[in-house]
Each structure stands twice: as C-alpha cells, then as structure tokens.
C-alpha cells in the first residue's frame, strides 16, 4: 500500500530522517514509535505530501507523492500533530468544506460526514465553533476530517496527545474500529499506546528505522534470557549463598533492606519452572522463607530503551565531540579533543 524508500530529510546539516525505508501492507494498524524528535512527524509529513524529502521516494498505492500528488493524496486521510481546524467554523461547516475539497460528490458527502461524526462521536458539538471546543473534541474533529473521502490509509500523528485517560481509551477504541476497514498508521512516543493498539510496530530513532515487527516478536526477540525477582527473609550474604547453590544463575542486583533481601536473578537456562523449584528447595532447606518470587519478561519498554538508548549515547558523544571541534575555546582544547576523536574513529 505504502512504500517508503531511502527517505532522507535534511534541515541544514541536521538529518531529521536519514535513509528510511519500509513498506506498509494493507489492512493493518501500524505504530510509529520513537522518542521525541526521532523524525516521526517529519516522516508522516513527507508521506502525506506536506513536506518534500531531500531524497528518496514515497509511493501511495503505486502513485508517487511528488509525481502524482493528487492521486496519491486521495488515498490518504491525515491528522497532523495539531488538528488543522479553522477556529471560526463549526465542525459541521468544517467537515463540509473538507469533503468538498477532497472532491467527495455531493450525494455521498452528507452520508460520509454523518458517518464520520458518528464514529468520532462529535454529533453533540457539531454546531459549536471549533475555537470553543476542548482539546479532545478538536482531536476528534481532526480525525473525522481524515475519514472523509473514504481514504484507504489513515495517518494519525500523535492522536492521543493532550487527552485525558478516558478520552485516550475512547480514541484507542476508535482507532481499533478504523483498523477494521482502513490501513491505519499512528505515531506515538508512548509505548503502552502503540502496544495496545497496533499490530506492527516501527521503532524510529534519530531518523532511522531500528526495528519493525509485531509487538510479540519484538519482545521475544530481545528477551533471550529469563529474569526472576526474588525477595528472601534473610541477609544479603546468606541469600547470595543460597542462590549460588542453584546452577547457571547469575545475580544482577541484590539489595538488603530491613533484614530482607531483594534479588534480581537472570539465567540462560530454558527450564524456568525447574529453576524456581530448585530455588525454593534451596531456601526452604536453609529454613529461609521466600517472601515473593516473580518472573519478569523483558517488556517492550526494555526493548525500546535498548534500541533507542544505546544510539542516543553514541550520538551524544559524537555531538559533544563535534561541538567541541566546531568551537575550540583555545588551541589547547582542540588538541586535547583531537586524539580522542581519532581513537573513536579507529
């Protein structure tokens, strides 16, 4: 449905998006995930023709967004970061305008507007001025606007930002509902949201695609190890001793507090139930109660942090080195920095 190939967007020397490629299949809900400033909005703006890429191409349903913008844009409904509403219009007037501008025939427009207002639940406010609407309702009017023209793809840029928890749940339900009939792409920097709604997750960091898979696969892929959290009613030394009696375990973290010890234990062993049994008998044999024991699976959160943080640190180091190189305070400073840089490059 959508093909993005080698997309690059430069702002001066800064690359907001660099060499991004992915394909969006029909009839799924996709999530764009990334920290702030990762290039999510830029990518979406390029995909919808609001922004031109420095290089690379975007094809919507086979139409290039630059070569045949009219045909490509007919296939997309887009909700930008800020819903583009005219403050002095009512949602109804606004939707009528957008429907006409999208070239929806008059006979169908009425029906489509009614449908869009119904699914986004803005019937009640249809005759109020947009400037008097709350953020949640504005967001919904923005989504209703994206639905007009019955586009095959709906692109939503941070659809739940600034909403209260109840509204967030409603919008998520709405997105799931939309996913049944349309291909939906949404962006977010909130992990749980993407995890809750999307079938496929694209993780973007520093303008690069770092992962693209289903939530389950991402979790499984990165959770090659088993992690256990254990609270024992004894001192730290004793707890460590008892744990070491079980084969193949390594202790990541041990904290003693109030005569209790909290341990984080990891292992590469596959027989996880057996580990628990062995630990239990090891502790019970020493007359030491285990107060709690729970298996922790690597969450998507960890995956996300792993994927985005490592690069962040690299980049931060690089940036600081570059800055230092750009503005050497004195000749000495520049000399101090230079060897380090060579080391890094080597």
């Amino acid at each position: 449905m959508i093909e993005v190939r080698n997309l690059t967007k430069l702002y001066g020397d800064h690359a907001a998006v660099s060499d991004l490629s992915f394909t969006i299949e029909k009839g799924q809900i996709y999530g764009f995930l990334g920290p702030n400033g990762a290039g999510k909005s830029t990518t979406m703006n390029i995909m919808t023709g609001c922004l031109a890429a420095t290089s690379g191409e975007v094809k919507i349903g086979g139409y290039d967004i630059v070569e045949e913008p009219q045909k490509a844009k007919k296939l997309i409904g887009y909700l930008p970061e800020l819903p583009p509403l005219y403050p002095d219009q009512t949602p109804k007037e606004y939707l009528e305008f957008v429907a006409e501008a999208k070239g929806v025939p008059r006979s169908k427009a009425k029906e489509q507007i009614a449908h869009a207002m119904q699914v986004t639940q803005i019937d009640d406010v249809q005759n109020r001025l947009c400037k008097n609407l709350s953020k949640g309702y504005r967001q919904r009017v923005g989504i209703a606007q994206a639905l007009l023209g019955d586009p095959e793809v709906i692109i939503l840029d941070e659809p739940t930002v600034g909403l209260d928890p109840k509204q967030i749940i409603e919008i998520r339900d709405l997105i799931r509902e939309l996913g049944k009939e349309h291909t939906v792409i949404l962006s977010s920097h909130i992990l749980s949201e993407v995890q809750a709604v999307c079938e496929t997750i694209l993780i973007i960091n520093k303008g690069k695609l770092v992962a693209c898979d289903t939530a389950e696969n991402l979790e499984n892929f990165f959770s090659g190890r088993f992690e256990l959290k254990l609270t024992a009613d004894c001192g730290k030394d004793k707890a460590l001793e008892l744990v070491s009696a079980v084969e193949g375990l390594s202790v990541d973290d041990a904290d003693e507090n109030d005569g209790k010890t909290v341990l984080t234990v990891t292992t590469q062993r596959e027989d996880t139930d057996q580990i628990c049994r062995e630990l239990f008998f090891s502790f019970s044999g020493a007359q030491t109660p285990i107060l709690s024991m729970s298996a922790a699976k690597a969450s998507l959160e960890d995956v996300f942090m792993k994927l985005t943080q490592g690069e962040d640190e690299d980049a931060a180091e690089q940036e600081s080195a570059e800055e230092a190189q750009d503005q050497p305070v004195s000749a000495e400073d520049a000399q101090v920095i230079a060897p380090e840089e060579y080391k890094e490059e080597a």
Partner: protein
Amino acid sequence: MKAIYKHELKGYSTNITAYVFGVFILLFAGIYTMVYNLGHQVVNFEFVPGSMPYIFLVGVPILTMRVMAEERKQKTDQLLYSLPISMNKIVWGKYLAMLTVFAIPLLIICVYPLILRTYGNVPLTTAYSTMLGFFFLGAALIAIGMFISSLTESQPVAAGLCFIVMLVNYYISSLLSFVSTTARTNMIVVTFLAAAIAYLIYTMTQSSTVSLACAVAMEAVICFTFLRNSASYEGLLTKIGSHISLFDRFENFYQGSFDLTTLVFYISIIAVFLFLCVQSMEKRRWS
C-alpha cells in the same frame, strides 16, 4: 478550487475585516460623490474613483494580511498541503474570494452614476471605464498583498510590509524625481539595481554560478547600451518609476482614455504575484 473559494467567502462573511474593507470603500465613495457630484454639481462621475486610489494604501493590507499568514499560524496550511488540490488552485480560490469581497462595494458604487443620470447628463462610458480600471488596480494590489501575506505567519508583519510596499508604489515616481536626471547617475543606480537583482537570484537559488552569470549579463547590457547611447539613460529612473507605479498608470482612466495596455499590465501583475505566491507556498514544503 470551488471548495476553497466557497470556504474563503464563508470565512469573510463571519470576519469583520471584509466588512471594514467594504464600508471603507463605500464611505469614501459616498463622500466624494457628495462633494463632487452633489455639492459642486460636477457631471463627471469618474472623479470619484479617480480620487480614491489612496484608500488602497490601508484597505489592501487590511484585506490581505490574514489570507495566507493566518493559515500558517493556525497550522491549517497542513490541511491545505495534504488536500488533493494543487497549490495553484488553492491560491486562485483564495484570490477570487478576495476579489469578490472587493467587487461587492464596487458594484454598489456602479449604481451611483445611474442615479445621478436621472438628474443630468452623466458621461457613463468614462465613468464605467474608470470603475473598471479602479477594479483592476485594486485586483493587482490585492495580488501583491496576498504574496506578501504568504511570506510570513504574522498578520501584523504582513500588514506592515504590505503598507510599506503600497506606500512606495504610490509615491515612487515622485520619489524618483528627486534623483538627478543625468545619464551617469541613472546608469550607476541601474547598475546597483542589477546587482541587487542578482543577489535576490542568489538568495532564491543558492547558486553562485547562476547569479554571477545573471549579474555579468545584466552589467554587460547596461554598459553596452550606455556606451552606445548614453542619452537613453537620461531620466531613465523617472520613466521606470512611472511605468511600474500601478497608481500612476491609473490616471489615464479618469483622464478619459480607455487604456488597454494598463489593463494588460494590471493583469500581468496579478499573474506574476499569484505565481510568486504559489512558489512561496511550495517553497515552504521544501524547507
């Protein structure tokens, strides 16, 4: 284009600026009709629009300041960019809506000569050809204002800039008459103008080869014509001034001649500035 046009007109119907603009024109037309035609019993209605061009100095900035700037400020330009309509049609739709707002008070004014005619012999041809010229003068200035509005996202800045441009255009020939008419001074000023144009080309294209080539070509033409016939440079700037001043050219209409070249000039100004407006909107997509 129709959707944009209708949407804009609807916007003007709920916005005070369109009414202020209309009332402004009607007020001045009313005053001049009172003074000339009723007070002094003059039969020539063309004096009324003929005395009014200066109202554009304020009227055009008021009308045009929000047209593009506000879209950008409210971020509604994102909607326009993502709509399956070309930027050309969006700009023309908006422009035609402004022209409609401008034409309504003019149509009302067009009734005045007919009323006056019942009391005397009013030369209608000159009156209406002046009204037509007045309409196209306004249309050309509105196109310029629209382009200026597309340069910024702040309405006050757009209005201020537009006012300055209108003012310079209004006074340009009198300003240029202060420049010495000798061939040499004119040649030097034209040389600087050519350099400025070359710099403008450079800021737009970021290509030093293209702009340098343009500069060299322009200077070559200037030097060549100057050496060949230096007399042609005498009073050149004043001539240029009266040619490019939209206001000066309007005088021909109320002096009684239907000036087709000026109409064509106004229409070309409209085309050029709407084209620039489209380019300025498109450029934002690329930055």
